[in-house]
């Protein structure tokens, strides 16, 4: 199963590994190098990308917003013009009528009726009624659905206004029959200069509503009119019915179209375009919901963000992959270099040990020979000469001296052999003999700890192989040393030699020591892996053993069970090709 663990690169968890002296700073630094590289590269790669995207985003957002504002503004302006024109048109009509007809004519209800019909026909509905009022404020004549003849308007504020300003436009109100309408009135001063007539007409709000609803306003828009007190003059979709109080705040007076941002009762942002319609009590309001308007922008924005996230992810993935790859390579190269250095160090060490051993052995051999010879002479004197034959006691003391000389001689000879064999050379090697020779180095320790060692050839015809004796001795010494370290006192070590096929031999080193855990087993041949770091292990022994084995064309394997024991198996070619 592919798991996150597989993604971890080799250099990540090097806690298992022993830091070689002086190089501990390397092993942890790989992680740091990895982090720093990724951080730096990502910043440089993604920084500008993100920055530019953000700038782009802001600019686009602002430009879209400003475009909408402009559009709103334009719509309001255009609509305002239409409404203003509508009102002006009707006012002018009344103006014309009042100038074109004498007061007397207009007092005639029949004439008024005709005029009203004509008005209705020419101006497509809207005019509801028509009435003439004299200077005293009394309704002289009236045509229309209401019963207003003889009504007195003298004390009404609108009358005063129309007297004052020559015309009057009212806000919308609910008149008789609960139909919302407004009133336009124009004044015509009589030729005598003192009296005047006021022609008054009611206009339904349908035309306004038709006009406003014919507007194409996106964004769940609402177009309606309010008066200066905020009372709705037409029906709106979302902000109240006619003659209700608008739910929006009354805008500031202004002489031009304004578009402002506001909030509705639900907290949603709105674009409110308004225009005070001059000479009327009306304010045109066109309200759009910002969120609706910007829906298209939001889609684009989403795509932009997705793109950014997508490319950033991709870039990061590539960077991470590349950096991981590179750091891995660096790590591998470093490891190899360290290994090489250590191998060289090891070889040099072995060489100087060899030289030293040789020279020490040599130096010792000379005095040894003198001791031996003189002791031998003393013994001869005791044997050959009559006068010394009585000194039995002294005679007996010579033998221990001679034995010790022989023993010392053996040891120096072994040392010299080992040292000599460190030079690479291919020669006939008797494996059993070589193993026994190596064991002789460790005899004392084995005896002391009660370790039982058994060497046996499982095949009858164990061949003498062609190989490098020096390397074999090092390999065997290393493995046996490791076995000794794992064994408890009184433990066993079995060494078995056998043929393996036609071209190979096999040597097995089996012990009943404490064994190796499966986790350690994985790493056991790796350089710098050691379970003995607390007592001076360098972790190089088995790695070098493995290298040496490969150098002489062989293979090495290990099996182990914790608590039961370990078994090292070495396979060697019978004939090593000399380089």
């Amino acid at each position, binding site marked *: 199963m592919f798991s996150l663990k597989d993604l971890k690169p080799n250099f990540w968890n090097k806690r298992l590994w022993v830091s070689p002296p002086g190089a501990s700073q390397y092993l942890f630094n790989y992680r740091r190098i990895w982090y720093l590289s990724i951080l730096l590269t990502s910043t440089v790669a993604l920084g500008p990308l993100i920055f530019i995207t953000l700038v782009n985003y802001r600019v686009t957002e602002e430009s879209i917003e400003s475009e909408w504002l402009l559009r709103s503004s334009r719509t309001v302006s255009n609509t305002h013009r239409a409404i203003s024109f509508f009102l002006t048109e009707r006012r002018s009509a009344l103006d014309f009528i009042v100038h074109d007809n004498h007061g007397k004519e207009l007092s005639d209800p029949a004439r008024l009726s005709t005029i009203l019909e004509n008005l209705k026909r020419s101006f497509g509905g809207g005019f509801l009624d028509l009435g003439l009022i004299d200077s005293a404020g009394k309704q002289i004549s009236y045509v229309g659905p209401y019963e207003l003849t003889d009504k007195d308007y003298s004390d009404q504020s609108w009358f005063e206004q129309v007297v004052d300003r020559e015309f009057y436009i009212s806000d919308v109100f609910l008149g008789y029959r609960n139909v919302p309408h407004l009133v336009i009135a124009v004044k015509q001063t009589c030729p005598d200069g003192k009296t005047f007539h006021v022609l008054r007409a009611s206009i339904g709000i349908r035309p306004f509503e038709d006009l406003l609803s014919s507007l194409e306003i996106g964004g769940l828009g609402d177009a309606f009119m309010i008066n200066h007190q905020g009372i709705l003059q037409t029906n709106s979709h979302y902000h109240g019915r006619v003659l209700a109080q608008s739910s929006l705040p009354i805008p500031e007076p202004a002489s031009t179209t304004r578009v402002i941002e506001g909030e509705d009762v639900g907290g949603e942002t709105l674009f409110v375009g308004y225009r005070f319609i001059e000479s009327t009590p009306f304010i045109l309001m066109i309200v759009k919901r910002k969120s609706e308007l910007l829906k298209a922008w939001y889609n684009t924005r989403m795509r932009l963000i997705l793109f950014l996230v997508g490319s950033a992810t991709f870039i990061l993935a590539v960077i991470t992959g590349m950096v991981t790859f590179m750091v891995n390579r660096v790590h591998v190269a470093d490891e190899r270099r360290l290994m090489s250095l250590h191998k060289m160090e090891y070889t040099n060490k072995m060489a100087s040990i060899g030289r030293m051993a*040789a*020279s020490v*052995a*040599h130096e010792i*051999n*000379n005095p*040894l*020979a*003198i001791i*031996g*010879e*003189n002791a*031998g*002479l003393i013994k*001869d*004197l005791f044997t*050959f*000469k009559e006068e010394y034959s009585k000194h039995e006691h002294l005679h007996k003391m010579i033998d221990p001296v001679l034995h010790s*000389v022989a023993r010392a*001689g053996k040891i*120096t*000879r072994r040392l*010299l052999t080992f040292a*000599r064999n460190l030079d690479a050379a291919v020669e006939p090697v008797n494996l059993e003999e070589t193993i026994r020779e190596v064991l002789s180095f460790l005899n004392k320790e084995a005896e002391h700890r009660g370790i039982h060692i058994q060497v046996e050839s499982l095949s009858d015809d164990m061949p003498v192989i062609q190989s490098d004796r020096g390397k074999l001795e090092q390999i065997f010494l290393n493995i046996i040393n490791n076995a000794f370290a794992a064994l408890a006192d009184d433990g066993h070590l079995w060494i078995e030699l056998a043929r393996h096929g036609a071209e190979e031999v096999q040597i097995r080193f089996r012990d009943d020591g404490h064994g190796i855990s499966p986790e350690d087993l994985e790493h056991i041949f790796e350089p710098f892996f050691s379970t003995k770091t607390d007592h001076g292990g360098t972790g190089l022994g088995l790695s070098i053993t493995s290298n040496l084995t490969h150098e002489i064309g062989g293979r090495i394997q290990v099996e182990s069970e914790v608590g039961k024991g370990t078994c090292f198996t070495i396979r060697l070619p019978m004939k090593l090709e000399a380089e």
Partner: protein
Amino acid sequence: MRVMLVDDEEELISALAERLILRGIDTEWFTCGLTALERVGSGCFDLVVLDVKMPRIGGLELRDKMRAVCPDMKFIFLTGYGSERDFLLATAREPNVCYLVKPVEIGVLLAEMKSLIESDGAKT
């Protein structure tokens, strides 16, 4: 049998000589190769035991010089363990070079001496 011993270690060579004398072998010993050479000049020996590594004149060179004086002399070389290889390399082309590795057991030396002397007798 008349035997000459040459080795720069006096303590070694004097003891060895005495041991041979105790066994009835006529032995003379020298610590200096040149002195030994002079001695040969005044009379040949049957066998010479030479140390290979000596100051001023080495064993092999000494042998060659002695052979020039007494062609029939037999030679046994004594060599240290470490220099065995070098010695073998140096005498690779020669057949039948006798050598023993120090420290030498008296029995081994006697056997070697005996076989050398007798082998010559068998030849003729």
